[in-house]
């Protein structure tokens, strides 16, 4: 009896219902290579048992409609971006089999960067690169792989070295990268080469099933219509013109188990190949021609895409979010979320009312009225800890129950030059966080004092680092406090804590912040235990210095 040995693969639809016109046949021209390659890929997906897990990324080009045919998950990508789209899919669904199917314009021209970097990362994807040396879908324009002398609609006199340069050899280019595990170039033009293509396709997909890393098969493919040849002549032309320049062969194969010497070499150079990375799932099986055994799920994702599972309840604490203690409330998580949604003004409301301007806190009676609701500007050299100074004020202000904001100057200033930041502590909701007219100016160097002194409001408090500022600020409507912050800091152990000395001075003068809240703020912001201790001593020294100064002035 006769039994079927080859027929339309299951992973190809019986009827192409997404297609307009005749739904029994592809939209490809007679003699086109795409249909052959589609068939071989689909047959392989059947044989390896991965149809359900497969997501095919189709490009822009003739194969943009690959989703008409493949009975797998389909994602159509922007021109050239298929490797990036495939990366997004594979990283999101590590158990899926992600295939990127691209032509020469898509992959080698507009998508040159995406393929290079996906290959370099060693993404666990399989790329089928169909090279027909021409732009087919758009009607015969030059491709990066068009041959020298080849006439196209945009190289009507033939491609020249002078104008367009050499045709791009993608396998050779990618073979310069360390990460790809498998690169092979094959061709579609006769039965021998077609069967080599079939074998390469199977290996490239098997590699992904085994979690080995990045595989790419470049397939030289005839385009009879655009080449303006019969299917037979197109195959002959491919053989005689493309094959000599684009030599078929294996350009990379790291799928065999690494030998000892390779492992040693890689360990010495501090890097590991994708093949040895995949050591958890060694690729001992190299499929023989026409005899690929079905591989059974579940997949063995490589280390690269393996992710840890984190229970949802642990997420807030991993983000450093502390649960609020609300006495008398049930500790159910739904209750807490509901609470947030009540606080958030934006959920399920088309119109958000203005928030009530509630009094958030109040300043202790020890704080003179002129220092309440301060608008603070802090300025100095980059590297003097100006931003941290502001952060400590804002953090401790928050811990004191005030409304606070901290706004930095950002960017190149952080790497030298001047830095400044704006801090507001308020009992009201803070409107503008910008401090354009400071009521308190902390100045750590001379240029910043000269720059910001004119901005200070009448009656403003100016605390300046007299170690670096030899002339006191000249304005008769302000209050000035000299503080030799850098010298005091050096005595304690490091000039770097001059910023904390300034905080101490501010605390002693204004009583805006208590020592407890400032110390707690330092604990929250400074990670190094030794530095925390140093900072605390600097703050106490700054307080002491200002108290002594006041005593002298009063006596």
């Amino acid at each position, binding site marked *: 009896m006769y039994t079927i040995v080859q027929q339309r693969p299951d992973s190809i639809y019986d009827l192409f219902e997404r297609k307009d016109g005749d739904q029994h046949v592809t939209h490809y021209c007679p003699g086109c290579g795409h249909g052959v390659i589609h068939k071989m890929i689909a047959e392989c997906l059947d044989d390896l048992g991965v149809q359900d897990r497969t997501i095919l990324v189709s490009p822009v080009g003739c194969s943009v409609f690959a989703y008409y045919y493949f009975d797998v998950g389909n994602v159509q990508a922007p021109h050239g*971006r298929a490797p990036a*789209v495939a990366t997004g899919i594979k990283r*999101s669904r590590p158990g899926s089999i992600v295939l990127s199917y691209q032509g020469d314009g898509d992959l080698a021209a507009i998508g040159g960067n995406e393929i290079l970097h996906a290959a370099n990362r060693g993404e666990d994807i399989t790329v089928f690169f169909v090279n027909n040396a021409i732009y087919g879908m758009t009607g015969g324009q030059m491709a990066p792989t068009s041959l020298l002398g080849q006439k196209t609609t945009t190289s009507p006199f033939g491609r020249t070295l002078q104008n367009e340069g050499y045709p791009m050899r993608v396998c050779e280019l990618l073979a310069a990268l360390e990460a790809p595990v498998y690169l092979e170039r094959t061709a579609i033009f006769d039965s021998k080469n077609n069967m080599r293509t079939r074998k390469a396709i199977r290996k490239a997909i098997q590699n992904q099933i085994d979690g080995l890393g990045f595989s790419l098969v470049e397939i030289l493919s005839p385009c009879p219509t655009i080449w303006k040849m019969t299917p037979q002549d197109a195959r002959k032309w491919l053989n005689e013109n493309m094959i000599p320049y684009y030599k078929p062969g294996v350009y990379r194969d790291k799928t065999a188990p690494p030998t000892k010497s390779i492992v040693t070499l890689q360990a010495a150079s501090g890097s590991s190949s994708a093949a040895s990375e995949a050591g958890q799932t060694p690729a001992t099986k190299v499929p023989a021609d026409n005899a690929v055994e079905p591989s059974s799920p579940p997949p063995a994702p490589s280390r690269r895409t393996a992710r840890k599972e984190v229970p949802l*309840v642990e997420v807030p604490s991993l983000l450093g979010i*502390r649960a609020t203690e609300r006495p008398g409330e049930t500790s159910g998580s*739904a209750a807490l979320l509901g609470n947030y949604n009540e606080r958030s003004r934006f*959920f399920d409301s088309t119109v958000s009312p203005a928030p009530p301007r509630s009094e958030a806190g109040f300043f202790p009676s020890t704080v003179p009225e002129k220092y309440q609701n301060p608008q603070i500007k802090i300025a100095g050299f980059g590297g003097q800890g100006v931003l941290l100074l502001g952060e400590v004020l804002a953090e401790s202000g*928050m811990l004191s129950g005030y*409304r606070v904001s901290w706004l930095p100057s950002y960017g190149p200033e952080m790497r030298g030059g001047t830095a400044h930041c704006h801090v507001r502590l308020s009992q009201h909701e803070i409107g503008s966080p*910008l401090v354009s007219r400071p009521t308190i100016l902390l100045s750590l160097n001379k240029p910043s004092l000269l720059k910001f002194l004119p901005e200070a409001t009448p009656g403003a408090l100016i605390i300046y680092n007299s170690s670096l500022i030899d002339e006191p600020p000249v304005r008769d409507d302000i209050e000035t406090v000299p503080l030799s912050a850098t010298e005091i800091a050096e005595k304690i152990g490091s000039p770097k804590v001059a910023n904390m000395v300034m905080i101490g001075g501010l605390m002693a003068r204004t009583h805006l912040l208590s020592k407890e809240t400032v110390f707690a703020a330092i604990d929250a912001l400074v990670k190094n235990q030794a530095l925390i201790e140093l900072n605390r001593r600097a703050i106490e020294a700054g307080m002491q210095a200002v108290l002594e100064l006041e005593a002298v002035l009063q006596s």
Partner: protein
Amino acid sequence: MSKELIKGNEAIVKAAILAGCRAYFGYPITPASEIAEAAAYYFPTVGGTFLQAESEVASINMIYGASSAGLRCMTGSSGPGISLMQEGISYLAGSELPCVIADIMRGGPGLGNIGPEQGDYNQMVKGGGHGNYHNIVLAPNSAQEMCDLTILAFELADKYRNPAVVLADGYIGQMMEPVDFPETAQEAPVKDWAARGDAATRKNVITSIYLSHEALEQHELRLAEKYRRIRESEVRYEAYQVSDAEIVLVGYGIVSRVLKSAVDMARHYGIRAGLFRPITLFPFPTQQLAEISMSTERFLTVELSDGQLVDDVRLAISRRHPCDFYSRMGGCVPSTEEVFDVIRSTISHPAECNEAMAVPMGLHAV
């Protein structure tokens, strides 16, 4: 209260994770880099994916892939990077893929500078990529709202299968303020339309190509209907002291904070000023502004761009009243006192008509 003093940029990342986002693809750029940096730390910590892509072009296409695969995913950037993403955003909109894009605006055009500006308004609110589409655009004005609106952005993106943008300026991104985060993390929804690489979704296709003219027209009409529903249901704004206002200031982001202080200052000096702050830029609160224009005759739009927001304000109040316009750019942000001076000047110099006021007042006119 368990509040955390945190930068707006970092608050976005924590909020995204709490909203069930588990994939971040991005490329660093000042003043948005803290988003990528925080994502690089927190996403792997919670079992998610962080990948620094080779470009913004690749980032947005990785988002296209992750969203196709059914994950809640996000990226972040600033003007120059957002320009590069526009192609991908058009595809996301065309394929109806939800995602969240944070744009921390800096100065432009070209390389511009890293100071705060609002010059990406048009490219985010009006489209920016090719074709007929809209992003949902949310404009926070505090670190707390960077959290709240990021969570809302994920909700709206999934509800409408559409890209949602958190549009903030450099100051809102860089500023630290106390933030009250939700204390429980959400489970991301399961998306049956996605290509998840399983038997249940094998028949799904994600695409934006509709070859036949009629089919594409139908697709676009469906999108238009979706945008109509968004306009109808998702407007959010803040109105402050507008009921008796003789002049209403309009602004978003960091500007709205300055405007609120300016309103208080104006009221202190006896000028009945109010503030209207669009929180959703698309959908724009057109109807609400129109209603206010029934009782208020003077409007002043302040923005860190050269007349982008003001176009929408003028459309909203139609020709009933003129709308004055004050702009600072290049990273300059007006002070409260500066805006107060503009308010006084506006009140004392009646505006001519819409056309005449199309010339920005800028620094010269004040």
